[in-house]
């Protein structure tokens, strides 16, 4: 039951009159202030972003790979180009995990004679992990064995390659994270340059409109008409392989998308009243463009940049495959993949780890950009 005051409610008849106080005898009357804090644009987006679990997982995945790309190469004593021809093509071995049967440096050797397994000169003590597939061939007992290749090859106890080593005895752990670093560096820088050029170009075209816009858009159409594959190839043939020319090759065409988007945003906002108001107040074009209109498109810009990063990583590894990638001793995801692919049948670890890493990276970036798009612009959800 609600305790509402009514004149005939006996419960309230005997209340002492002195207990009553006038609420607003001397106070000013005004609206109540908001108790809660105002939610800004970014906080609003962040709240929506955190609510989608997939995006958060993707973000964690990216941060994890970023962390390893920055600190991974320094985690062991090998440099990315330390060659040691005594330790070539070793399987992965991580001392702590080796006891559980994974990353134990194991490699399968086929068609061994069973009676030869006790020969410690060929199989040093404790190197045989597993004997399986025993069979008899022409009266001789044969079997396949899995050996701890490090002990089998007589490599000192303290030499361990976490992800194995490649055909020059370089540590793949170091090379892989170094490669991730190079690939991410290329991706981030090229996307940054793309977005920067795109913003300035699109803003000028969209803001001034008319003939300026017409000419600027025709230029983008001409650049865009050329097939990307051809442009990138010619570009790298001309400037030579190297990080800088790959970054530039990634920029040549990719800024156009951003420029078009920014231009559309400017067409949307430049007619609004607040722009007219600031122009009446004498605000300069430059300030209008960058302070008043551009911030409206910050959400789409961030989303777009995030979407462009996996594309850049893809193109970089694609170039490595067709022989236009990073120069020799330097490592990148694409270089590792194309090198590992050649020896895949003998040493699958050399291609599997980079493949898994690039897959996680690409999926995470795509998920993240989907999440960001939904967070910044909820009307587009699920599109």
């Amino acid at each position, binding site marked *: 039951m609600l305790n509402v005051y009514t004149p005939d409610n006996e419960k309230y008849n005997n209340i002492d009159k002195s207990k009553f106080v006038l609420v607003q005898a001397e106070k000013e009357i005004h609206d109540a202030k908001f108790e809660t804090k105002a939610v800004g644009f970014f906080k609003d987006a962040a709240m929506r972003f955190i609510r989608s679990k997939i995006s958060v997982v993707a973000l964690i995945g990216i941060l994890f790979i970023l962390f390893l790309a920055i600190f991974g190469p320094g985690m062991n004593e090998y440099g990315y180009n330390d060659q040691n021809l005594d330790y070539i093509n070793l399987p992965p071995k991580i001392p702590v995990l080796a006891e559980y049967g994974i990353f134990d440096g194991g490699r399968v050797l086929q068609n061994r004679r069973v009676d030869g397994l006790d020969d410690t000169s060929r199989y040093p003590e404790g190197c045989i992990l597993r004997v399986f597939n025993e069979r008899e061939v022409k009266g001789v007992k044969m079997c396949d064995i899995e050996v701890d290749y490090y002990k089998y090859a007589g490599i000192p106890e303290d030499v361990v390659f976490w992800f194995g080593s490649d055909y020059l005895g370089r540590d793949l752990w170091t090379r892989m994270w170094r490669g991730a670093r190079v690939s991410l560096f290329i991706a981030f820088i090229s996307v940054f340059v793309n977005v920067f050029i795109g913003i300035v170009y699109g803003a000028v075209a969209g803001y001034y409109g008319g003939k300026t816009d017409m000419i600027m858009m025709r230029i983008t159409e001409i650049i865009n008409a050329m097939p990307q*594959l*051809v442009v990138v190839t010619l570009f790298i*043939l001309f400037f030579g392989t190297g990080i800088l020319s790959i970054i530039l090759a990634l920029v040549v065409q990719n800024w156009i998308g951003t420029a078009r988007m920014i231009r559309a945003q400017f067409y949307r906002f430049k007619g609004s009243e607040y722009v007219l108001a600031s122009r009446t107040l004498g605000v300069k074009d430059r300030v209008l463009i960058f302070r008043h209109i551009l911030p409206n498109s910050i959400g789409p810009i961030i989303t777009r940049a995030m979407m462009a990063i996996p594309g850049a990583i893809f193109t970089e590894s*694609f170039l490595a495959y067709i022989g236009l990638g990073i120069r020799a001793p330097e490592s990148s995801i694409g270089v590792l993949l194309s090198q590992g*692919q050649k020896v895949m*049948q003998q040493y699958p670890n050399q291609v*599997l780890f980079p493949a898994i890493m690039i*897959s996680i990276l690409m999926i995470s970036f795509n998920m993240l950009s989907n999440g960001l798009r939904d967070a910044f612009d909820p009307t587009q959800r699920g599109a």
Partner: protein
Amino acid sequence: MLKYVFERVLAMLVTLAIIVTMGFMVIRLMPGSMFEGNPDMSPEQLAALEAKYHLDKPLLVQYGYFLRDAFTKGDWGTSLKLYPNVPVWEILQTRIPISMYINVYSLLISLPIGVILGIVAAIKKNTWVDYTVSFLVVICISVPSFVFATLMQYFFAFKMEAFPIIYEPTAVGMAKLYSLALPIMALALSPIARVARYLRAELAETINSDFMLLAKTKGLTERQATINHGIRNSLLPLMNIIVPMFTNILGGSLVIETIFAIPGMGGMMVNSINAPDYEVTLAILIFYSIISLSTILLVDISYGIIDPRIRMGGKK
């Protein structure tokens, strides 16, 4: 319409001319001569060879010779390193069919699968079916085709021995298709995902539109309305992504072909860049430009045919 098509073809030819010119200049301006570093050659022989291929003339004259040969004789130059003395055009003729084979097949198998997945996801929107399809779509779009190809080659071909590891050049008919199954599948995954995603978005929107409601009020069942009105209307815009997708597959097949040792355009492009044999590289680049430009043209023209509401070339 005819005027519009004419304009577009003209624009395409201009772009192609720019690409050919740029490609030619870039490749001829590369440092070093194609015959350099051959110890068996005397300076006189070198000079004679350079004179034969007009390499001793100024760049613009060389370009003139190139254009003249290309247009009057259909001669796109001669391979000098990879296949000495074989005309580039002949090499292309042996290489193009096999590339087209895997590209067309992967497009052919990706369309029905993608369409079915997209329709199922849209009809069962926000159920586990939809979530599963969307999850697969994200994976197939994100992971590069050459990673898929490598993994498939390792697990399906090497470990399970279900498919041949590399292409068998002698196979014909079904055996050829079988030996190319893995590359075709690897190339098809991304288009499948793209078609499915596009169709899902398109159909989900169509299902909620007014004419679908009208169809149901007239007494059509959910199924009839979806099949006769929904799907038909959402399939049309699909045309816009299929044609550009072909260019994408073509680019992806460059790498896939090297992975599976398929003697197509991809392998030749990689080899010609590494050799280096720039005449061949240039011819391949021109080939890719022609394909990609004609697909863009096809899309632009097909807009007007597929959806007459879009007036092509109109000013306002």
